[in-house]
């Protein structure tokens, strides 16, 4: 423990490599928490993403939680980690589906996570990549909002933009992504 706050400190001191270490620590923690849920949870009970991310937040940052600058780095890392976990899992599940049949497969942590049927995470991820190439800030906003469960205002704070700007970015990015994904479905 203490690692995460250390990484954040290094990051704030300008050590870019700390970002990777932070991401990897948060990623591991989220997977570990999800695995814990998988093993411990009793039937009929669900848990929301926000709770998971914030559980990791309090666990990893301990007394440092609540310090504004730490939160910024943490949530940025957590959103990215959560995105990777979910998209990877969606890819694996997709492969299983394409393989057909009822092959038994190993359990993984993301099995504890239920995706809304209406959203194709893989397509979303591709569209996000595309958006990021054009406008990274907006893609980051979406990742914070969608994968870390932050509100638009909160995500805006992480990115250091005002609430109104965040709202405007959000409206645009969400519409853009929607348009991008539905182009795939709909040749018109």
């Amino acid at each position, binding site marked *: 423990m203490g690692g995460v706050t250390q990484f954040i400190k290094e990051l704030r001191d300008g050590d870019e490599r700390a970002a990777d270490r932070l991401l990897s620590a948060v990623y591991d923690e989220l997977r570990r928490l999800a695995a814990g849920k998988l093993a411990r949870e*009793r039937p009929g009970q669900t848990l929301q993403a926000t709770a998971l991310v914030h559980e990791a937040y309090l666990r990893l940052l301990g007394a440092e939680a609540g310090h504004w600058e730490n939160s910024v780095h943490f949530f940025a890392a957590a959103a990215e980690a959560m995105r990777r976990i979910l998209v990877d899992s969606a890819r694996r599940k997709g492969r299983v589906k394409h393989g057909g049949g009822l092959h038994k497969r190993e359990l993984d942590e993301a099995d504890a996570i239920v995706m809304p049927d209406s959203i194709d995470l893989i397509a979303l991820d591709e569209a996000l990549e595309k958006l990021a190439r054009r406008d990274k800030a907006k893609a980051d906003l979406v990742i914070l909002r969608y994968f870390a469960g932050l509100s638009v205002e909160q995500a805006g704070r992480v990115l250091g933009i005002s609430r*109104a700007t965040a709202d405007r970015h959000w409206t645009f990015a969400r519409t853009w992504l929607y348009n991008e994904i539905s182009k795939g479905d709909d040749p018109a």
Partner: protein
Amino acid sequence: MASVWHEKLEEVFSVALAKRPGGDRTTYLSSACADDAELRTQVEGLLGAHDRVGSFLDVPPVDFDATRERGEPPESVGARIGRYKILQEIGEGGFGSVYMAEQQEPVRRKVALKIIKLGMDTKQVIARFEAERQALALMDHANIAAVLDAGATDTGRPYFVMELVKGVAITEYCDKSALTTRERLELFLPICHAVQHAHQKGIIHRDLKPSNVLVTMHDEKPVPKVIDFGIAKATGQRLTEKTLFTGFREFLGTPQYMSPDQADTGGPDVDTRADVYSLGVLVYELLTGTTPLDAEDLRGAPFEEMRRIIRETEPAKPSARLLTITGTHDRAAFTRAHRADGATIARQIRGDLDWIVMKAIEKDRTRRYATAKDLADDIDRHLRHEPVVAGPPSAVYNFSKFVRRHRVGVFVGSITAVALLVGLTVATLGLIEANRARDAAEAARANERVQRTRAEAGADEARQQAAKSATVGGFLQEMLASVDPSRARGREVSVRYILDEAVKRIAEGTLAQQPEVEATVRTTLGETYQALALYAAAEEHLRAAQTIRSRLLGDEHPDTLRSNRALAGLLRVRGRFAEAESLLRRTAETQRRILGDDHPDTLTTMTELALALWGPGRYAEAEAIHRQTLGTQLRVLGEEHGDTIESMGNLGAVCRALGKSAEAETHLRRALDLCMRVLGQEHPCTAEIMNNLGLLLEQQRDLENAENLFRRTYDLTRRILGPDHPNTLIPMNNLLRVLHARNETNAIHPVVAERMDHLRRIAERPGANALAVHAYAWELLHCESGNLQDPRTALPLASRAVEMDGATDATMLETLATAFERTGDLDSAIETQRTALERARAGGPYNRAAIESKLVDYLLSKRDLIGAAGVSWAGLGALLEDSLLIGQIPGASLVTSAEALTEQARYDEAASALRGCLAMRQKALPEGHWLLADTISRLGAAVAGTGAYAEAEALLLDAHAAMEVNHRTPAERKRQAAERLVELYEAWGKPDRASEQRLRINAAAAPSESIPPDAGD
């Protein structure tokens, strides 16, 4: 960095979006994309997409769902498990899977086999099942599916074998068959009877919910069957306090059907009334299509928050809930399923059925129907158009909640410990206050009382005792005499003063050579302190007496045992019920052995034990003991003995709490007769029984006679105890509650003012006890007549009360914290509230959730989020809401909850949430900030909902004006604020002003062209 072109795309899109579709937008696009056809195509594509985007990405995706099958392979057809052969899978749920199976011996039949998921301790599950197997076998009811067997599969998973029921969940059946309200109730009745049957065999279901009540067809008639009896208990783990982080969902049962009692303990204390609650939820759902508590709220909530919701959230009445069904789809579905629309059903339900359902799902189980049969009987009465037992709960209930905050409380069940002491204290008090000094004759009389009580206490050692009593009496007399009349003149001499002098003397070693006398004196001191509600001091002396006696006389001496009883009585009064219980059980056992079952000491201990069980609500156990004790006393002491009469009164009181009204009335009336005849009207016992009878009549909705009784009790206690004695507040509070229930507004205010005055007088008496000072401080902070509130006066009083009490009582600390907060000293409020929480955690009958949530509020007002999160899950919830918005938008969670409340038409609560939010924001935001105006506007809408239109108008106009002035106000908020005004005037019946206002909105909307300015810092 965003590409320049992309930024341009966003800008044009954003501006175009703010324009009205059609002319404005087209004009704008033509000019903005004049030379860039690609840009225009893209913007138009996005504008089109925007219309369809819906809630895309608005809901975070991650939901952990532990109900998913996790790769455990299904049992294959033909496989054998024990004596059973699997035929096919018929169901699957969070618990595991259900199969149709064939039993081959001893009889060949089809059964249902339920295999529980891995992850449970199979051995324990089966052991728990075995423990209940015999009881389960005794159940024989057409509406109960028998549980036949249990065992473990080869892979170590527990399974249960049940009678095979081919049916669907009752809710599904009712909706698919489009049953009317009456048909639904008729189908519900046999379920109550089935549950009652199980209860009579000692089986509690613990997990009643629609999927455990299946409807199967028998001769073309629907027959409901309750399944899974005994399974929840066998598979359930006890609900325990987990740490903050691992505390997720170690939960037995389904939260929206779970009673607060079960959610809180989950363990051995759950009784049949937990099932009554679940039945209430089930019938609520059958009538309205929704459960009283929102399943989504509960699912999303962290563990502690979930328990808090279950414990505290007051659901809407069924008829009110029906009116909040929104969405055309939901409405149509409801109408199809019920053969009538929500408004029609709401009219059918309003009144009787509302009351019946709300009584079944009372948070406090003592206010529920005592049995499933009582619930069924009331529904049956409704169906036969007879008057029902349940009554409108709101007024009485709400006000009784208010009264409960006064720790003075109801003096039900306090009789035994207090009677003697009140006698002693009253004599002493009367003595001192009547004469302002002591008078030899009166002192002698007080002394006599002491001697008499002592003499009664130990008949067999009468002579020795008498000598000792003389010494004791002499000691106290000396103490009284030590108050110099010349010094006493001009100021009152308090009992407290005398006691403290006595303590000083003991400390000086005056009684060192006579430990037995010291023990007796300390007992008297302890009991007197207790009567004065100075509990910490009382405990010190009672414990010292107990220690001396145990050392001197041994643990089995009658005096030591009596000391045990006295100490346990104090522990009970201090709310340490478990400690009291174990000491009393030990003591009673020894007394039985040494003195016999019929000895008065044994009986007194048993009575005390019953009262200790009463404290935490174990009424049935308390009842059994009172009943047995009364039986013995009637035989040994006869009907006209004081102890017998007290027991009879206690039994009546506990019967009342258990809802056995008829029996309660018999005992109480008989006890009152005897009391008047034997002890005389002017006796505390008479007052207490009269008070309990009043409570019973109140419960039976005979409010007029209840009011009369409370008035008589009030007069009586004033006479016996004097107008300033704290105990006169009890009937006064009861009287107030009934006056509220009867809506006698004019009669209320004088009583409230009188109470304030009374509390002030008591508190201002020299030597007033902590309780009295606290009661006055509390009243100054919370009194329902706002003009009587006075936090500045309350603060030093609350502080004094805490000091006098030795800072042991959480409620007093909480009051002090409130006083700090109300006078603007938030730091001290937080520190004090933290101490209160610590004390509450250590024990006592405290509502910890309420203390916690207030602490969280204080911390949030200080923006100490991490502190808030550390306090509880409620704090964490607030952290999620606010952590990143700090400095920007405090109170967002309150706004959210106010919105939810407004949707449920709970305007009063919404308004108070918004007032809280406003208070927070006023502290955090600069004057004139648009968010303040926004909050005031929302508050205005909530106030309008309550019908206070004039007040609402003032708020809404203010808010609107403030927004107009502040150019940073987002246009959307401005529009909402204006629309609230329109809605107000419409509701108020002022269409002219409504349309005037609407015109203004339209006029304002037209010229707006710019993007809303940034509202951030």
